Structure formats: C-alpha cells, structure tokens
C-alpha cells in the first residue's frame, strides 16, 4: 500500500537556525497537510495545501513557517529562526480529495531545537 514518507526521522537544530522538513505524499493525492504534536499534547493542524497554494492555516502557522511543493512529488515545511518551543513531532498527511476521506499520515519528523 502506498505510504506518505517523511525525512529526516529526527532533526536536531540549534535555536535560530532554519530547518526544512520533507514529505513525499502519496503520488495521486491532491491535498496536503502539516500537523504538529508537542510531546504529551494533542496533534494540531498547521496548514493545508491544494493546487499549489495554501488553502488554510492555523494561528500557529505564522511568518516563521512556509510550505512549498517544489516539484511533483515533494512537499516541504520550512521553519525559519527556530525557537525552543518549535520542538515537536511534525506530521505530513495527504488525501486524494477533500472532506470525507481519511488522511494518510507519515511517521513524522522529530524536531529537537537546542
């Protein structure tokens, strides 16, 4: 069964540095999402992306964050000037169509800011 893949599995970065988290969604999917899970807390929506543009973003997704689909397969989340509180698991998800379909999640990238 096709899977969403995320790299790296663990990223350690110094505070203030920029980090790029990478995702390869399932190939025929059209809607893409990033979520964040701070340790011990619930999974939080960050941003959704469709047709090469952001369709919705949460309050968390401020100017520090950006997303891009640079080619036909990758979907990236960039975090500029990282802060300690950015430490979390970041999950990418994708679906073929919107609304009532279950999202397929990757295994996540654990981001640790030192």
């Amino acid at each position, binding site marked *: 069964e096709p899977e969403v893949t995320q790299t790296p599995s663990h990223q350690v970065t110094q505070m203030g540095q920029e980090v790029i988290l990478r995702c390869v969604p399932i190939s025929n999917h059209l809607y893409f999402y990033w979520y964040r899970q701070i340790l011990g807390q619930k999974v939080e929506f960050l941003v959704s992306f469709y047709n090469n543009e952001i369709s919705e973003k949460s309050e968390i997704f401020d100017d520090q964050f950006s997303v891009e689909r640079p080619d036909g397969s990758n979907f990236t989340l960039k975090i500029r000037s990282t802060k300690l509180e950015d430490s979390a698991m970041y999950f990418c998800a994708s679906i073929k169509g919107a609304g009532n379909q*279950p*999202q*397929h999640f990757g295994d996540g990238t654990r981001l640790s800011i030192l």
Partner: protein
Amino acid sequence: AQSVAQPEDQVNVAEGNPLTVKCTYSVSGNPYLFWYVQYPNRGLQFLLKYITGDNLVKGSYGFEAEFNKSQTSFHLKKPSALVSDSALYFCAVSAYNQGGKLIFGQGTELSVKP
C-alpha cells in the same frame, strides 16, 4: 469553532474484556468523524470514519464506533481487547466545508493487560 474532547487520558482494560474509548465533538453542520491510532514513534493510522448512514461504523482490527447525534458522541469500541491494542487513540472531526483539516482530541492512552 470545531472541537473534540476525549475525557479520559487513560483507559485500562484486561485482555478479552470489552473496551470503550470516549469522544465527544462540537462542529457546525454535519460532522465527519474519524478515529486514528498511534503506536510509539509512528504516525497516525486510520481506524474508521463516520460520514453518513448507519450510526454503527465498523473499522480495522475489529474496532467499531457508534455515532450519537443527540449526545454529539463518537465512542470507539471493541468487544474483546487484545494486548496489542495498547496504543494512543485519537478522535478527530472535520467539517465538510473546511478543506479537510482535522481537529483532534487530546488522545487516550489505552492499556490492555494480559
């Protein structure tokens, strides 16, 4: 605004006994409801969904969930628990006109003891 509540941080059951993991939701309009399971260091795996139709929904690994509109609940159930069911369970809601983003509950840790 949409929200999901899972009132129990942890549920403990003995193997072979029935289990219930509770979820209540709040959403304007018709909800799309989902249950996901998360094993350690893994992403979220889809278990089942309610979109419309029968209030009792059957999903993967013998799980089922009952949609109750009057109580705005979507409790996850299984007639006979297995030790391997021990994991973190998330209930999530999506509004049909919200681009598919998922709003998650805080999660319930299920522990099944032999």
